């Protein structure tokens, strides 16, 4: 196993002594044998998720898998069913559009408050106390919004404002506002300071400094990230139907539960096409945005057109969903939301209940760890195939023959397709399928999480592998190393820190997904929450949500700490990124 060497070691030989003046604290013993620690942790997670590899390969599992696949040939295509599917599909899109718009509306002011005051008063001596307090409060609010998974927000809003797409829009709006707000604040903080400093030196007020010095540079990145998040919102809204918040999820769940695999196949294909097309479109737009950074390069008519299209989309979505805007902002709705929220206090802290939660918490953690581990292994295998052609291209030795090259490219496209399929279907829908393969319980949840995350991580890994500097691998090949030796000793060690950083970041996302797996019966805290909400035991619901928030916060902290031990921050932007426990803003667009 190649030694885990962080980037600083490989740079030692070329960096002058003076630059190494920063002393690095000795590694805690835990990180000295990372391979061993990881193996032990994953083994524990396997036990905790009631892992059962034989169940995966049992006769029952193979029979179910065969039934699934048979459903795809042919998928249900009778007119009645297809017409029944159209409305939920459009609902899914409409909920995502309105949800992400709401998220941006909420995120912008909050992110402004959450940005370090240094950003718009770069020449001030020290930020004022009210500004500091506002910053802390805004960060807290954003973290709370982020920590609660969208499905739980949806469950709460369904109780508070009733079944229907409105609950879905609110759930996505608030959940994603937290994510967007944090990234926006980070982007504001990590932009080059020269413009802002110049304006401040010329005497502009903080507001003007921000609007003219910081905002224009940030806009393309913000727009790009919001567009990326729209992709995620689309996938999320497909799932929200499971709890009654509108969209395709409900229909899909029913078809799955009744073993109507032809219908399932039709809906999966429809969802895949929808997400893939939106994904492609948004990728094209984001690439254009990336190339036209700066205030002057983006023409005004283009931006007006973009804004007009977005508003039209919102209007159409609102009308299509018959969005009860008047009802939502009425006094009655406010009263019912307030009534629901206050019915949850005080949380149920009885010893019996809390003790009963222990196993569920451990299950949730196990699902997240095992799922991430499965994803990492699966992801790196597929990523290798995706990145293979570009890696081999660099080899000056023995250019590949025509047929071999074509096979490599075919394998690369197959791998890419597999990753896309895994990524497109939300974890919960995979969980529903795995429940029928390996039975109810956390193992189904871990497998589903592993498969979905493999799709996400695989794509990221492939990008990292493709961008690895080819010097070392060329040198190894030139001295006669085989392809696999080159990959193992030249490519992988260089890529490893970034791969691990992405994996750890994904673990943070996965703990949130693990918490809700139980809603469909795949283990963890979700089941208890579903029961407490169904039985109107609101005090217990509050306790469960608090436990989820605490769990998410703990994993975020641990993951951030681990990542900080692997990466040495190179710039101020990365420094603030490290503080905020997220990958640097530049790679945010790569997600």
């Amino acid at each position, binding site marked *: 196993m190649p030694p885990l060497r962080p980037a600083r070691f490989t740079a030692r030989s070329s960096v002058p002594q003076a630059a190494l003046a920063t002393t690095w604290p000795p590694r805690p013993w835990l990180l000295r044998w990372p391979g061993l620690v990881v193996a032990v942790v994953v083994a524990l997670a396997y036990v905790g998720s009631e892992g059962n590899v034989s169940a995966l390969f049992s006769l*029952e599992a193979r029979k179910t898998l065969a039934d699934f696949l048979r459903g795809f040939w042919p998928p249900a295509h009778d007119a009645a069913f297809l017409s029944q599917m159209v409305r939920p599909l459009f609902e899914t899109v409409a909920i995502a559009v309105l949800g992400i*718009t709401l998220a*941006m*509306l909420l995120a*912008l002011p909050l992110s402004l408050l959450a940005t370090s005051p240094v950003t718009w008063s770069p020449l001030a001596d020290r930020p004022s106390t009210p500004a500091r307090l506002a910053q802390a409060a805004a960060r807290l609010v954003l973290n709370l919004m982020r920590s609660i998974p969208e499905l739980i927000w949806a469950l709460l809003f*369904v*109780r508070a404002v*009733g*079944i229907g797409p409105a609950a879905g829009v609110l759930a996505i709006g608030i959940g994603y506002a937290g994510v967007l707000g944090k990234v926006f604040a980070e982007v504001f903080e990590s932009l080059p300071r020269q413009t802002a400093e110049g304006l401040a030196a010329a005497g502009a007020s903080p507001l003007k400094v921000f609007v003219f010095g910081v905002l224009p540079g940030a*806009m393309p990145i913000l*727009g790009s990230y919001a567009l990326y998040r729209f992709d995620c919102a689309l996938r999320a809204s497909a799932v929200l*139907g499971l*709890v*009654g918040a509108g969209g395709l999820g*409900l229909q899909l769940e*029913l078809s799955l*539960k*009744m*073993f109507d695999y032809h219908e399932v196949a039709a809906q999966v294909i429809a969802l895949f096409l929808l997400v893939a097309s939106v994904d492609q479109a948004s990728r094209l737009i984001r690439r254009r945005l990336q190339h036209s950074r700066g205030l002057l390069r983006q023409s005004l008519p283009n*931006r007006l057109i*973009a*804004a007009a299209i*977005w*508003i039209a989309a*919102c*209007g159409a979505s*609102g*009308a299509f969903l*018959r*969005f*009860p*805007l*008047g*009802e939502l902002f009425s006094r*009655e709705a406010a009263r*019912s939301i307030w009534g629901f929220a206050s019915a949850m206090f005080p949380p149920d802290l009885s010893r019996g209940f809390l003790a009963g939660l222990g196993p569920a918490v451990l299950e949730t953690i196990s699902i997240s760890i095992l799922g991430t581990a499965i994803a990492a292994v699966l992801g790196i295998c597929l990523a290798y195939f995706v990145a293979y052609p570009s890696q081999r291209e660099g080899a000056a030795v023995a250019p590949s023959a025509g047929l071999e090259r074509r096979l490599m490219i075919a394998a690369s496209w197959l791998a890419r397709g597999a990753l896309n399929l895994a990524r497109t279907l939300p974890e919960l829908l995979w969980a529903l399928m795995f429940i*029928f393969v390996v*039975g*109810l*319980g956390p193992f189904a949840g871990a497998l589903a999480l592993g498969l979905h995350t493999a799709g996400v991580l695989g794509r990221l890994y492939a990008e990292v592998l493709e961008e690895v500097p080819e010097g070392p691998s060329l040198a190894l090949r030139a001295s006669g190393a085989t392809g696999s030796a080159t990959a193992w000793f030249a490519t992988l060690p260089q890529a490893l820190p970034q791969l691990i950083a992405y994996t750890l970041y994904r673990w943070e996302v996965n703990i949130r997904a693990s918490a809700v797996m139980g809603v469909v*019966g795949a283990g963890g805290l979700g089941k208890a929450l*579903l*029961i407490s*909400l*169904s*039985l*109107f*035991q609101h005090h217990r619901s509050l306790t469960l949500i608090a436990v989820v928030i605490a769990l998410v916060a703990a994993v975020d902290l641990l993951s951030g700490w681990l990542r900080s031990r692997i990466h040495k921050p190179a710039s101020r932007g990365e420094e603030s990124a490290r503080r905020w426990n997220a990958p640097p803003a530049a790679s945010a667009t790569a997600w």
Partner: protein
Amino acid sequence: MTKRLFLVPILLSVPLAAAAEDTLRVSAIPDESPTELQRKFTPLGAYLEKATGAKVSFVPVSDYAATVEGLAAKKLDLVWYGGFTFVQARRRTGTAIPLVQREEDAQFHSKFIVPANSKAKTLADLKGSTFAFGSVSSTSGHLMPRYFLLQNGIDPDKDFAKVAYSGAHDVTAKWVESGKVQAGVLNESVLEKLFEEKKLDKSKVRVLWTTPAYFDYNWTVRGDLDPKLVAKVKSAFLELDYSNPAHKTILDLQRTKRFIPTSPANYASIEQAAKSAGLLKD
């Protein structure tokens, strides 16, 4: 772009459909698939519209608890509840009025089913198996089976290997039929219907045990609905006559021969069972 987004709320001010005359928003607990609920209701809805003169619309709801919330939030007027959901609705609103029920519902049973090749012969044999209830809020699919299991010395949370909530009776039947769970419990009326319509293979599923009788489904109205409308609805149901061919279709879909009046007192024992099974806290 941010400034332009503030126009969105103005653009989205969709005028709400004004509820002019009497309207009756009807719903039902989703204990079967939505298409099935819609199919059962359509002729009944047409009949109610003619009998009461009110505009009747069926509001499908995907979650038991949401029907309770809907009645409490005045978004629903007439709801087909199970015994437990009625108790929940009554506790939430204080004034929900149960009007009528099918004559079968006064003496309702749940049936425990196992796959045909299962070795279980009595309830006690189910210990250690994977078990499927219906929805968490279901009377015949969860509450009363749980209550009777506890009465027979079996604690579902401790004695079963895994407990799942299928969400609907037909789903429970499917899971047991295909062997995905080792046992399940569901509504006797739905079970008979599934056998009759050949949607469930009689040779693959066996009834293990039938529970004692209890009060279950009823049609409940909001307490603050116009009393004249309430009276019209009640008499419309009670006038359904099996010998009348037009009514026969309606009654067949509802799987009964006639409706009888009911009252809140009938559900005191359900409330008691819920409290002792731990599903209702005071």
